[in-house]
């Protein structure tokens, strides 16, 4: 699965990987806001933004080509809307849609490619995201692969039966609903099992955080310098 690749990238060690997740999130939001308010033909600004992304990827040691390739997942959507805008005579908007949404995607990829999700979540929590949502996301991500694998098995099992039975569409629809119900039930009972396992290890009703984040001088420097570059490039 493709996200496994990004997960591997995020395990690396580079100055960018080492930055506090809050610093990277702040810089990302600055980048996205600056980009969102940049005109589509402000090419010097866009060039600075793109150069910063490329520099980030190089410093982080991420394969630039594959990063750019992955970000292309956005293109079918943005190019469609770009063509529509172009045909409507809004050429500037058409260009802006495509180039800006692409750059935004690369920026988000650069963040998740240099920050393992648990750290990203701690960063989001430190920036004020409610703990309940953070924990929810943590459990969701932990069991995403486990349950996807089960879904995969159910799909395979369904495909194996399909050939012989020759069920018509209605039957197949009901079979799929049955498979989803089974997946739901398994997920539900798995959650019960997880809860039991938590209780067995003396869970008291509160999660205690293990790794406090440390926002050091280097993180402050990184945030200030990149943030300033982005803002300067934006207002030129």
């Amino acid at each position, binding site marked *: 699965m493709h996200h496994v690749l990004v*997960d591997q990238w995020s395990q690396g060690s580079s100055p960018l990987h080492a930055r506090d997740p809050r610093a990277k999130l702040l810089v990302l939001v600055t980048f996205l806001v600056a980009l969102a308010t940049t005109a589509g033909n402000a090419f010097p600004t866009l060039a600075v933004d793109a150069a910063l992304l490329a520099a980030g990827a190089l410093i982080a040691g991420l394969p630039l080509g594959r990063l750019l390739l992955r970000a292309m997942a956005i293109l079918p959507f943005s190019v469609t809307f770009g063509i529509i805008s172009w045909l409507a005579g809004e050429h500037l908007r058409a260009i802006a849609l495509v180039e800006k949404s692409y750059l935004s995607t690369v920026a988000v990829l650069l963040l998740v490619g240099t920050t393992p*999700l*648990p750290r990203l979540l701690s960063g989001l929590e430190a920036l004020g995201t409610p703990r309940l949502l953070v924990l929810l996301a*943590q*459990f969701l*991500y*932990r*069991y995403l*692969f*486990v349950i996807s694998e089960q879904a995969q098995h159910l799909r395979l099992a369904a495909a194996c039966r399909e050939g012989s039975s020759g069920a018509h569409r209605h039957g197949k629809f009901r079979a799929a609903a049955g498979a989803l119900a089974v997946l739901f039930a398994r997920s539900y009972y*798995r959650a019960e*099992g*997880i809860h*039991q*396992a*938590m*209780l*067995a*290890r*003396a*869970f*008291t009703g509160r999660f*205690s*955080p*293990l*790794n*406090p984040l440390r926002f050091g001088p280097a993180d402050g420097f990184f945030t200030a310098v990149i943030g300033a570059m982005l803002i300067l490039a934006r207002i030129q």
Partner: protein
Amino acid sequence: MTPLIEVRDLRFQYEDGTQALDGINFTLHAGETVALFGANGSGKTTFVLQLNGILQGQGSVTVCGLPVTKDNLATVRSKIGMVFQDSDEQLFMPTVLEDVAFGPLNQGLTSQQAIEKAIAALKQARMEHAANKAPYHLSAGEKRKVALAGVLAMDPEILVLDEPTTFLDPPAQRNLVHLLSELPQAKLIVTHNTRFAGALAQRAVFFERGKLVADGTVQEIVQRFDWTYSALAPEDLRYLAQRRL
């Protein structure tokens, strides 16, 4: 000397009315390793979940002299380290280290102390190299060892293992036997794997429809109930061999 676990006339009924446990009496002494045999659904897992109060029925359960009641749950759960059948359910934290530190943190240790405990436990389970990995990337055997480390980090006096060999290939099973045999804690092992049980336990008990029907040496119990590792008794093998001819 008080026994580690003392169960008297324990009964438990599920909400749907199934009588899962029907008058169980059981004692575990320090240093003992006991295997729990019995068919699926005979009450083995329900029984072990009573020991740390996750399920609670009628009768008395005492662990290290403490009755398993609401007030004592935290202490009791620190004394009993339970390794569940499905490691994916037990390893719910994003990284191995965080997962192993989960118990110590619940016991009120600081982050630093919890990390030290976790690393020591991972070393004991020979999994310290995986500290920063995500549980999803581990093999079944590695997951089991990390789950074991997660309970060892809480310094339990009793280990309860529910079907510990499920999903493990033979080398991983052997590896686990060696690991467990080095641990000084008393152990309760729920298993169908009689060889695994024989390698670790002296004593065994047999569950049948919610009742504990026999208590003896592993060998006795295996012979008495024809509870063999391969599921096929010699006469089955002879019969099958004849049919193939």
